[in-house]
């Protein structure tokens, strides 16, 4: 099959246009939202206040998850020590980390010494390593205070599977990446898109894998991660 194809477009679209009683417009001007309540949420908060809100909401998620989610506000100088503690908390096991130079910059080389580093050139071997990993270590690209969500924007070296397969996660949340809510993340994606940058995947994550499909009982780790710890770093 030829790639980059759009099949049956003409008949499909012209049918819709004729139902709408006109030709397909060349341009549509979006009328804009009649009000913007979303901009009022945490309006004017400083980064430190947003970090507090992120942490507060993570604690609410923690309560709802029976302790499967955790969050700490720390300083960069304590990062290596805290990551080491968290990587041992639920027993030893294989670790997978991104191929990301920030780990070295932030003094995590020793802690991640034994970790498997996602190496795209190795192909599917990476996926097998992720499947067997007890721990994944990641860094939030955009962090949403309202829901305590971290975001992973797809890029070589990060490995999509490494973000969903390990049992436990330690996510480093630089305070500087925290925005009030999804609104600001969408503004960023809009700006990127205008420049022609549409990353293959953007994942907003605010919890562990869970389901209530059996008599509405919440169970954790149905497919992917069971535990998630946010380390909010106040001076990053």
């Amino acid at each position, binding site marked *: *099959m030829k*790639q*980059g*194809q*759009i*099949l*049956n*477009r003409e008949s*499909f*679209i012209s049918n*819709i246009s004729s*139902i*709408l009683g006109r030709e*397909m*417009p060349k341009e549509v001007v*979006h009328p804009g*939202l*009649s*009000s913007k*309540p*979303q901009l009022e*949420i945490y309006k004017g908060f400083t980064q430190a206040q947003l970090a507090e809100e992120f942490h507060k909401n993570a604690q609410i998620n923690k309560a709802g998850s029976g302790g499967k989610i955790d969050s700490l506000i720390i300083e960069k100088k304590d990062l290596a020590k805290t990551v080491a503690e968290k990587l041992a908390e639920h027993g030893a096991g294989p670790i997978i980390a991104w191929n990301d130079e920030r780990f070295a910059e932030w003094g995590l080389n020793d802690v991640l010494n034994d970790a498997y580093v996602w190496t795209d050139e190795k*192909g*599917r071997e*990476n*996926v097998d390593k992720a499947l067997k990993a007890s721990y994944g270590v990641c860094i939030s690209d955009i962090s949403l205070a*309202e829901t305590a*969500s971290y975001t992973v924007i*797809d890029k*070589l070296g990060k*490995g*999509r*599977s490494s973000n*969903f*397969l390990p049992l436990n996660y330690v996510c480093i949340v630089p305070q500087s990446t925290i925005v009030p*809510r*999804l609104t600001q993340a*969408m503004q960023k*994606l*809009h700006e990127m*898109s205008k420049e022609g940058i*549409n*990353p*293959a*995947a*953007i*994942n*907003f994550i605010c919890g562990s*894998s869970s*389901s*209530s*499909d*059996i*008599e*509405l*009982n919440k169970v954790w*780790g*149905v*497919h*992917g991660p069971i535990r998630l710890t946010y380390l909010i770093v106040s001076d990053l």
Partner: protein
Amino acid sequence: MGIKINDQSFKKNLKKNLNDDFMRAAMVKAQDLINKNRANVLSQLGDGNYQEWQKLSGEVRAHAIENLDFYLNQFAENVVKNGGNVFFAKDAKEASQYITNLAIEKGVKKVVKAKSMVTEEIGINHDLIDAGVDVKETDLAEYILQLDDWNPPSHMVVPSLHLNKTQIRDVFAKNGYSGKDIPEDLAAFARAQLRNEFVTADMGIYGCNFAIAESGAITLISNEGNIDLCTSAPELQVAVMGMERILATYEDADICISLLARNAVGAKNTSYTTFVNGITEEGAADGAKEFHVVIVDNGRSKVLKSQFKEVLQCMRCAACLNICPIYRQVGGHSYNSIYSGPLGVVLTPLLAGYDDFEELPYMCSLCGACTEVCPSNIKLHSLIHEHKRVLAEDKKASTFWGAGMTGAGMVFSRPWMYKLGTGVAPLMTKPFMVDGKIKRGVSVLKGWTDKRDMPALEKVRFRDWYTSRSKGGNK
């Protein structure tokens, strides 16, 4: 499967479900729990003015539907810019055939699927299985239903709500499970069975909560993470979307996403909100190397043409199911459609025709609760009323409603007949009375007395009593 879930008569389905005590209790529990949580999270959304958000969401959905041709075209162009392919399918058959042919052409042996209403609607599973492809539903509920011989879903958000944990244990036991009916253990069994499937599948198929025209992104919202695994490992990926799922911009998506989980499950957010924009970067070890979006009409353009077009704004949150007093009593399977509750009442006859679903519009008391909650600002109860009008005017109404209501209409519109009728009614209903109650009515009364008793009619008519009282009588 298609839209219709079985070939039994409406009455037979209803009777079966009304006798299912577990299922009925489960509906009540789900409604109460989700509604309590929903009210709580909505009160915390901004300044708690839900109506303002509801209005906005209605606006952005209506704008997208009014300009559907433009935005679908823009979306398709962007999918291609992101390295993907787009197939516009006019019906279920075309959509399913395209995906099945793709699987055959690429030598696909195993597909991992994430829950999606539209893939149910186009019946893709059975076509793939007929083509020799191993299909694994990965959403926990859908996995249970697949193992239970493709038991149909009964709720849009919690599809296996009608099964209790012992029934689920029995289903799993047939597939190698030897544990107890403990939800954690059952989920752990599913996890052990499914984890490896994601990384060994050749193809991932998933639905689409919203499609963003400005970038070509498919937005997926879930709690289990199975969708993310379907979008991560398989090299060949297919997203299937109803054509109405489009939104113009990321800003519009913000409004709708902010309302979806809150209304669906009473949570601020689901664990995972994902945007997929086509194929991965060259050289990436996982992610889609080939990406297809199938955009499905399957009757939606007929809806667009009709007075029911507003229903295309639906974001499938199930809030209307969760508030509906009828759904609470009868459960999802009674609608005999993959789309149940008030949304199903409106949508099913439009997509699948009145012939099989003429009773559905009467599964509504017109209380309006669904309209009040709907985050897409759809006036559901008015649309249901409109269905009733169409059925009545086209004389398509069922025997009960048709004959009964025609008779009633004739009587009520003729004063002499009404006077005579109400005068003799106490006498006429005497044969149906037991212990002072009417228990077995006929015609208009039958629909009522099938389910509950009716008090005996007074011997003196209200009008006569009132006239007598006005003249100073005391009767």
